[in-house]
């Protein structure tokens, strides 16, 4: 065949666009579909605002999180203490913005680490098949039947409320569900004809995984990552609420909730500011995840509306 190809006139070798140039029309389509989803745009706006608050908020705070104002115990929101103070005289604004930042860092870090572990093990299981797949799935299923929350609480208790350790604990017990999801997606990609085509062309297995399998579940990984943030905020809050997570002198939204709920009738602001912030955070991320899913999913009805 090479003879035939070389027999072709020189003029028939036209200019060709190299592999480096990529069309961005797909990204633009996703962006347009995402923008059309009003709740998702609101979600992004709220999330950006919360990030700004978490970054800039502590710098403009008049008090630090451990600074006790003995002259203003259980003050309602007002002039010097914007969100008021709690029973011990701590500034609730300083605590809320610090706690927000802490919760966000934990959520993003845990979600990212979880995703890395899950996609590695999930894709490996799907690609290798056979006994490797059986072992990985066996381990996942075994961990999943254990009372995970109890284990998280016990281990977190031992580490003494350090937020870095909390990240480790939440990651260690949180990757299994996502790994299963990724394994399932990868097995469906594995059956596609372009994978078979690549195999018949003699393409090596590792190349197949990185060139065909991972990119084709990429959009779903983005969605999984976003949803992971919500679930991590929830677990961190729950642990802190039960007293196993972040501990004084550090502050997270969850640890503020446990303080606030006991004095709900006398100083309701001590509960409502952290609770409201946390609700905003989870709702905004959930809205973004929803919008992303619809924008990236070609079959979604919501994304297809003009």
């Amino acid at each position, binding site marked *: 065949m090479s003879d035939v190809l070389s027999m072709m006139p020189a003029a028939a070798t*036209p200019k060709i666009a190299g592999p480096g140039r990529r*069309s961005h029309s797909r990204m633009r389509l996703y962006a347009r579909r995402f923008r059309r989803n009003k709740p998702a745009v609101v979600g992004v706006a709220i999330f950006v605002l919360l990030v700004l608050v978490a970054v800039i908020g502590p710098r403009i705070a008049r008090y630090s999180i451990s600074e006790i104002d003995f002259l203003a115990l259980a003050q309602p929101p007002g002039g010097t203490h914007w969100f008021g103070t709690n029973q011990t005289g701590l500034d609730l604004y300083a605590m809320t913005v610090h706690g927000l930042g802490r919760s966000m860092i934990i959520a993003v870090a845990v979600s990212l680490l979880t995703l890395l572990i899950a996609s590695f093990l999930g894709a490996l299981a799907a690609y290798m098949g056979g006994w490797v797949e059986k072992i990985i799935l066996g381990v996942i299923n075994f961990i999943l039947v254990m009372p995970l929350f109890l284990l998280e609480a016990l281990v977190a208790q031992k580490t003494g409320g350090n937020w870095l350790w909390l990240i480790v604990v939440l990651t260690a017990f949180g990757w299994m569900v996502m790994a299963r999801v990724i394994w399932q997606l990868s097995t469906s990609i594995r059956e596609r004809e372009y994978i078979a085509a*690549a195999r018949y062309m003699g393409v090596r297995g590792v190349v197949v995984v990185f060139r065909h399998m991972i990119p084709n579940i990429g959009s779903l990984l983005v969605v999984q990552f976003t949803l992971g943030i919500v679930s991590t905020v929830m677990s961190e809050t729950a642990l802190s609420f039960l007293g196993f997570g972040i501990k004084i002198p550090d502050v997270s939204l969850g640890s503020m909730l446990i303080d606030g709920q006991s004095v709900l009738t006398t100083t309701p602001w001590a509960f409502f500011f952290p609770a409201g912030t946390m609700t905003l955070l989870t709702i905004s991320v959930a809205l973004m995840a929803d919008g992303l899913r619809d924008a990236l999913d070609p079959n979604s009805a919501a994304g297809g509306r003009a």
Partner: protein
Amino acid sequence: MSQPILAVRDLNVTFPSEAGRVDAVRGVTFDLYPGSTLGIVGESGSGKSVTSLAIMGLLAQSAKISGSVSFDGKEILGLTDKEMSSIRGSGISMIFQDPLSSLTPVYTVGDQIVEALRLHTNLSKAQCWERAVDLLDKVGIPNPKVRAKSFPHEFSGGMRQRVVIAIAIANNPKVIIADEPTTALDVTIQAQVMELLAVARQETGAATILITHDMGLIAGMADDVLVMYAGKPIEHAPVMELFANPRMPYTIGLLGAMPKITGGDKAPLIPIKGNPPMLIDLPPGCPFAVRCPVPIDLCSQREPSLTPVDSEFDAEQVVPGEGVVDYHFAACHRSVEIDHGLINGAPVYPVPEHEYHGQFADMARNDRPVTLSVEHLTKTFPLIKGAVLKRRVGSVYAVNDISFDLHAAETLAIVGESGSGKTTSLLEVMSFDPKTEGAIKLGGVDVIHGGPAARRAHRRDIQMVFQDPAGALDPRLTVFDIIAEPLRAFGHDKSDIANRVAQLMEVTGLDPAQADRFPTAFSGGQRQRICIARALAPTPKIVALDEPVSALDVSIRAGVLNLLLDLQIKLELSYLFVSHDLSVVRHISDRVAVMYVGRFVEIGSTQEIFANPRHPYTEALLSAIPVPDPVIERSRSRIVLDGDLPSPTDDKPGCRFANRCPLFKTLSADQRSVCQQQTPPLTGTEGSDHLAACHYR
């Protein structure tokens, strides 16, 4: 002359979409008379299914519908869903394409027919059940009393479609709309279902709308034909008139683009250039003008409307049971000039010129080298029982002891119904699996038992093109990366790859300037060309083609088939071609192997097989294919097989075809016992390469 039962006037449907307003149906007008059959034919996206859904009131909320649909004298467009529900099923009923998804898996088929009956009648439950059994009997379900209590998954595809038809005729509808009723079925089953539809029509006296892309079905079933293109009816005439003297270039092209089952040599087909248009923001003028071989200036300025053309129609060819007969509408500015495929004496579509030459073109088959040799290939799948302790209880013989040789520059087609094992054979050849039973020799080297070195060395000699080009191309890679993939795998260097990709795109009729686009930006035909370019990249000697044109529209098919034939001559390729479409097989292949339940039942040269089929199954298969010519289609006798393919689970001795064989029924008891006890070997007369596996032929 009676009143039309269904009158559609200027039906328009538009959908909103990402890119803009989609004009899916534009100005459909027709009358349907009691007892007659209207065929609506068109390619995918031509608006034929949307038309039927609009009539049924089943379109999504977002669709905007205008015009008028009157059923039995009453306007039904714009009725509420509740009002439509009383008409759907009892007045107008519908048969969908996929019988698997149109039946609910959790209810028995009897219950589903009873449900349809109880919605529209006041019969008691017991009466309904009786009628359901009666209906199942009518549509040819054996042992209906027992089978009524079966669930849909216990039926085969053809049987399920019979149940769907039973539900459709349960309330004696006046109109039956059949939307691609046999597209998901095999040809022998298709013949059964079409026969049943004709019976159902006589039984109920209902008018039928048959929606299909298959001109052969139209030729056999329809009284009137409406051809649609880009959402618009472009020709409307009685079936005989339409096939004898089409007046719109698109219809002429559609009829000319199909390989003729009666033809045979590898003369190039006449493709329609270009692709069907997107229905978004259609420019003024005729939507077909850009693809039309004979456009004039007026065509791009004003869209022609569907107007009567003078007709020299012979009234004696009229099929009885029809309304108005003497009419012929076409939407073309030049339809008056067009006559029997000629325009001013010259053919509307000039025949493309192909020069076939090459060192193998004139060489006898046996003198050419053997490129692929398959010996006693057998593929079994284990049949496993038990939930915890899995044990093998038997084997499914997907491929059972097949052997064939493929010579250079030759095409061997493997034909058979779904489940016959033809694709499995192909994949087994492609996979080079050392566990395969039998031998696969590429250029004389056994790649199965030759060890990994032999396998690697011969990997590039055989490449594959898949059935569905959309699924075979990674949507996240550009065309350049896709075609370059095998080259990279075989270690070509960078500048070589860039040159070869450009050349391959040129050779397969693609524009190399589009190499940085993603597969989704291409039409189905172009995507298949990308697949072919990728398969040719490592300079293979053999290309395995798994139904390469069955997912493509008719007008696109011709171009891809021409390309395949052209490349075969130029590059001296051997094709291993798998298909169920016998007209395509007849066109492209040199030799044909007919497969039935894992075995070859007949193998020989294409001319021999089509002219003198020896095996009764081959005969039945050939007679089941609809011929796109109403005169032939309505006069020939057809062997309709009853029953379905047997399951390939066990490998008992005896002929697998005996239970459906028309010949078997004529045999004496002694002869029958031979069929049942001895597996017939592939035999032929001395010196002939036409072999058949039948004891009595």
